[in-house]
């Protein structure tokens, strides 16, 4: 795959194309491929660098984070009120966050779509209307069930614990082909088995004539008489990573796909910050408990994620088995010095069980001192209740599976050694600010709405405020999903791209 590296471009650049796509992640890649296939000249601008998938195997987790993730994976949602501090992981490379996901693929649950069509009045988003888009993307990115044989011992224990409490677990689906169970999908698959968009989608876009430019920071969208006309920005310097050489690109259609954290920032910087831009951010707060067993678990041997349970879906909790790189797990262990070393040494006997909350939109994205946004999040009372309930459920599953000790996701907390101790702790509901949470699915910060008063974009993906300007990433999803968002983002992007192509003659007239 041939990518133009912006950091190698020494002189200002200008060009005119049919479509500019800002961002090369799950949304941007799909839009670029569809429109390139339709014969449009397409240029994809990606702020992050390009790293060929064959290099992922040579990256340790910390190198992968500092190379492929925004803020080296240290991005945070600043808590407001009684809210946990949440790390927010987002990709910054060609392929975007799809390079850093666990590969889990869910369609948008029917009850969520029902809510969108009935309560929010969004037409055309019924399960039946979206099914063809999901099916097509599932084939493109090779979605398959994780077979039981690929489950790590950690996942098996999760299933055993759940079974003994009557909680059914199911096999997850992921976009993989030839998974060897390296258990480090979220640092770039070392075996090239995860079908992230840099492997499964972008090569096809390029084969159909699309140009992908890395290290290209878009600073503003040019708008004239209410119509998007192009973008301006700068390529990043090879030594410092700071913006240097300018580019000025003209296009008939501009598609923003920078993700839920950066799409609102770009819109605001371009003077397009309408009421809802940057608001309603949902994060799917996720947490995990560690369970110490007498026998060896070696949880790193197997698929990173292979099982889930929707048993508590009505309560807004999805259980997910998860086990990642040992160094990442060690980073969350409590203690200092000898005490910490002792917990780290118990790693081979530890299993990890995870859960995720289907949350209200309590987040907000703001511009502030740097290029990166200020993300704030206020957890609702309902979600705090869900969080503690989830912690309790995971702890009980761990004890049911035979765990000797359970490490809860609470900063500075000692491990609990019995169900009674666990229940007493959860019943006390300590301050939620001390809970360690993560977010991998920021959504909704430029949400779809039936009219200008209720959202940023139309159901077609075009912004209400500016013609020929589209958004095609997770920010348009109007509520959280309760499930992983990669596949929904891709399916929505495909739908938006097909809509653009169907109406392209009109957009050309508007751009004239």
């Amino acid at each position: 795959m041939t990518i133009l590296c912006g950091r190698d471009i020494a002189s200002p650049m200008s060009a005119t194309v049919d479509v500019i796509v800002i961002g090369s992640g799950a949304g941007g890649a799909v839009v670029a491929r569809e429109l390139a296939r339709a014969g449009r000249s397409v240029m994809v601008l990606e702020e992050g660098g390009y790293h060929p998938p064959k290099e992922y195997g040579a990256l340790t987790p910390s190198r992968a984070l500092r190379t492929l993730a925004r803020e080296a994976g240290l991005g945070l949602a600043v808590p407001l009120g009684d809210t946990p501090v949440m790390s927010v992981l987002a990709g910054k490379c060609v392929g975007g966050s799809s390079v850093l996901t666990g590969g889990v693929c869910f369609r948008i649950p029917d009850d969520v779509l029902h809510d969108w069509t009935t309560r929010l009045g969004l037409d055309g988003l019924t399960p039946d209307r979206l099914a063809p888009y999901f099916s097509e993307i599932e084939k493109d990115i090779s979605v398959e069930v994780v077979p039981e044989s690929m489950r790590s011992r950690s996942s098996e224990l999760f299933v055993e614990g759940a079974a003994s409490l009557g909680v059914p677990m199911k096999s997850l689906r992921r976009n993989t082909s030839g998974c060897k169970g390296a258990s480090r999908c979220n640092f770039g698959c070392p075996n090239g088995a995860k079908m992230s968009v840099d492997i499964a989608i972008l090569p096809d876009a390029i084969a159909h004539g699309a140009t992908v430019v890395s290290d290209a920071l878009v600073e503003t969208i040019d708008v004239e008489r209410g119509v998007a006309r192009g973008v301006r920005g700068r390529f990043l310097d090879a030594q410092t990573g700071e913006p240097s050489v300018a580019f000025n690109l003209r296009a008939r259609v501009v598609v923003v796909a920078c993700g839920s954290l950066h799409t609102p920032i770009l819109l605001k910087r371009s003077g397009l910050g309408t009421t809802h831009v940057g608001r309603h951010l949902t994060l799917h707060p996720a947490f995990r408990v560690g369970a110490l067993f007498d026998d060896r678990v070696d949880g790193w041997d197997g698929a990173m994620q292979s099982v889930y349970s929707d048993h508590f879906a009505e309560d807004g909790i999805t259980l997910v088995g998860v086990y990642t790189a040992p160094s990442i797990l060690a980073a969350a262990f409590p203690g200092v010095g000898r005490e910490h070393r002792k917990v780290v040494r118990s790693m081979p006997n530890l299993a990890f069980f995870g859960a995720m909350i289907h949350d209200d939109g309590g987040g907000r994205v703001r511009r502030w001192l740097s290029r990166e946004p200020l993300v704030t999040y206020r957890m609702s009372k309902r979600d705090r209740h869900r969080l503690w309930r989830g912690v309790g459920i995971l702890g009980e599953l761990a004890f049911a599976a035979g765990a000797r000790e359970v490490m809860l996701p609470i900063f500075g907390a000692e491990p609990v050694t019995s169900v009674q101790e666990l229940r007493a702790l959860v019943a006390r509901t300590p301050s939620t600010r001390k809970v360690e949470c993560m977010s991998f699915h920021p959504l909704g910060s430029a949400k779809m709405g039936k009219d200008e008063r209720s959202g940023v974009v139309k159901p077609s993906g075009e912004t209400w405020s500016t013609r020929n300007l589209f958004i095609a990433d997770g920010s348009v999803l109007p509520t959280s999903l309760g499930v992983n968002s990669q596949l929904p983002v891709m399916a929505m992007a495909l739908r938006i791209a097909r809509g653009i192509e169907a109406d392209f003659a009109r957009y050309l007239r508007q751009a004239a």
Partner: protein
Amino acid sequence: MSALPAGTRSATARGLSRASFPARTTLTPRDRCVLRAIAEAMFSQDGEVGAGTLDAHLDDVDAFVSAASKTLRFGLRVALYVVRFAPIFLFFRTRTLERLNVDDRVALLSRLERSSFAALSLAFIGWRSVMTLVFYESPTELKRLGYASDERHVYKRRLPTLAAASVVPLPLESGTRLRDERSPDSTDADAVDSAAPSPAAPNSNRREVA
């Protein structure tokens, strides 16, 4: 589309991608001194890690945090100052962290970790996370904690199935909660079994495991 400027090169033409921006550094000599004191308390309370290893560790930590934005790097340095001066407001001693002996440092950092002031606690926990993440990537440390090698065994159990079915069709189960097309009594094993070869659902992206 107009021509791209002369000198534009592609990543594949160059044949090598660069991982980060080499001119960026974050830690001053004083920051390194404080971080080294924390590293010693965290990983070498009994002197089990050599001085050279700790110094090399700091280089890796610097490279890691330097990939973050200016604002975040500034925030991290502020957090480091909080940890450095913590002995004053936690131990009421007019000494900075790096001037305490190792056991006192461990005691101080433990109190910081358990502090009821979330900001104090997070100042230390943030740095501990970064340092631990980098430290336990070393092959020596991974081996010590029982991570024998990158060799995986679980997937090999799957190889016979793959050999029989080089094309695995898309499953019946859609993966959507309310769209489970299987009967309520079917098991996950059925889902896996259903992954038998089927000409109805070819997938051009699929590759065999070598």
